């Protein structure tokens, strides 16, 4: 009975196995990126980037139909263009990064919508908006896995400057020039993972599998490494549970995954060891020293 509910779908149907593999790949790469987004106070930047990608993906979709590579390439180009332009403008002028990003992502969104409306095709934007992790073919799965691998490799390379830049940017500036490149590489990783996520969750929810696990992790640890591990596990668990829920109840898979993550998040807010609400209400007697 329990087997039928929790494991059966995956042994029985190949599309469920593919979806599970995809969601694990997404968790491994996306969750660490999400942790850094959160710690660098860029959570909403991720969301803005997701909007910036949309037009690129839509243009790819228009030009070559439901072709994964065209959509990914379009999304990457739009995302990189916006991320890099915003990053360069923020760094070379006094403008704050969020302000310059807002400008560029709105421009990108407007441009995208304009292109779509000129073409005038009645495309299935729902797919782009909400994705469909259950429709993964081998090719898509390989792309997702490849992007996740690249993400982890690049993250390993820029990890040290990224951490130092997050804590003490001025210090990094005085000892090294790695800060700028590391930041741009990080923005690129954000874009790659958003594009990665939209195959499965759609542009609007892609950022969810990055940010929500990070938010969950933040309530359970004060240590960066532990936080990243918790985020990855939380993302993978949400993905798995979301797929099961989706399979049993016919709720669309993307929203199901994000809703499970949301439930985990609420539990963490309430009962988390670090700053959880219950913990704050009943902290126990104060200590000796």
């Amino acid at each position, binding site marked *: 009975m329990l087997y039928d509910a929790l494991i059966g779908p995956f042994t029985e149907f190949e599309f469920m196995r593919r979806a599970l593999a995809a969601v694990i790949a997404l968790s491994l790469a996306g969750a660490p990126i999400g942790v850094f987004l959160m710690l660098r106070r860029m959570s909403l930047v991720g969301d803005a980037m997701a909007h910036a990608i949309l037009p690129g993906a839509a243009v790819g979709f228009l030009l070559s139909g439901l072709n994964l590579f065209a959509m990914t390439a379009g999304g990457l180009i739009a995302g990189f263009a916006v991320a890099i332009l915003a990053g360069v403008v923020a760094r070379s002028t006094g403008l704050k990064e969020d302000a310059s990003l807002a400008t560029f992502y709105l421009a990108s969104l407007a441009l995208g919508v304009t292109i779509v409306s000129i073409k005038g095709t009645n495309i299935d934007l729902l797919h782009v908006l909400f994705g469909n992790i259950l429709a993964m073919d081998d090719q898509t799965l390989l792309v997702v896995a490849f992007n996740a691998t690249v993400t982890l490799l690049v993250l390993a*390379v820029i990890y*040290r400057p990224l951490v*130092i830049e997050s*804590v003490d*940017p*001025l*210090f990094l*500036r*005085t000892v090294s020039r790695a800060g700028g490149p590391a930041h741009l590489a990080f923005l690129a990783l954000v874009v790659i993972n958003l594009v990665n996520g939209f195959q499965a969750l759609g542009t609007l929810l892609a950022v969810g599998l990055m940010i929500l696990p990070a938010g969950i992790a933040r309530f359970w640890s*004060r240590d960066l490494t532990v936080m990243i591990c918790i985020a990855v596990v939380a993302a993978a668990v949400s993905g798995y549970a979301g797929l099961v829920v989706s399979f049993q109840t016919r709720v669309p898979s993307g929203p199901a995954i994000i809703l499970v993550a949301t439930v985990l998040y609420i539990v963490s807010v309430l009962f988390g060891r670090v700053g959880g609400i219950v913990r704050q209400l009943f902290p126990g007697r104060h200590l000796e020293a």
Partner: protein
Amino acid sequence: MAAVHFHNVTLGYDRHPAVHHLNGEVAPGALVAVIGPNGAGKSTLLRGIVGILRPLDGSIHLGGLDSRDIAYLPQSAEIDRTFPISVYDFVGTGLWRGTGLFGGIGKAAREKILRAIASVGLNGFENRPIGTLSGGQMQRVLFARVLLQDARLIVLDEPFNAIDTKTTTDLLALVKHWHGEGRTVLAALHDMEMVRNHFSETLVLARGPVAWGPTAEVLTPENLLVAMRMCEAFDDSATACAADNARSRAA
């Protein structure tokens, strides 16, 4: 050869000078206090030395030191104290010169980090997140990092602000230890008593240099009065500075 050589340096923001026409040099191994009223350009000068701020005019030569030979302790560090990083890891970033992007932290380096933490009196704090430290403890952590940077030129901006006597004494001992090791130390300071007792050389700054030399000769009531009279506000309608040596304009 001088450790730091100022050649007609003007530093500032948006064309307005905050340090105006500064000439002179800091000898290697010197222990120099930079004093002056608020807005005198002390922090600006130090930012210019470490290369965060490019001079509007003139040049600063660092006698062959590159940026990794300089340790800089800013006044209000833009440190994100909520970031989950331990005292140990944070101090360890001071080893950047040796480790760079990928270099491992071996046994010797780990010992060094622990010794640095111990020498600022923070034994037992190694695993504490930096967010849980008090202001004085954080300043000790920053000093530990400067210690690890093993720099030939150490630039400290108001290092003893809002720090209690005990901590100040401990950290001042560290500064004198650096001086003893032959490192060049520049510090922006407020406490005249401390400058008089512990710093051999003083630069009195009030946008332009008021006086610069041995502390006993420079730290006179007259010089301080001149410095106090400096006008702080920028003049929005100021014309381009024509004089090459216009100290009087600053006052």
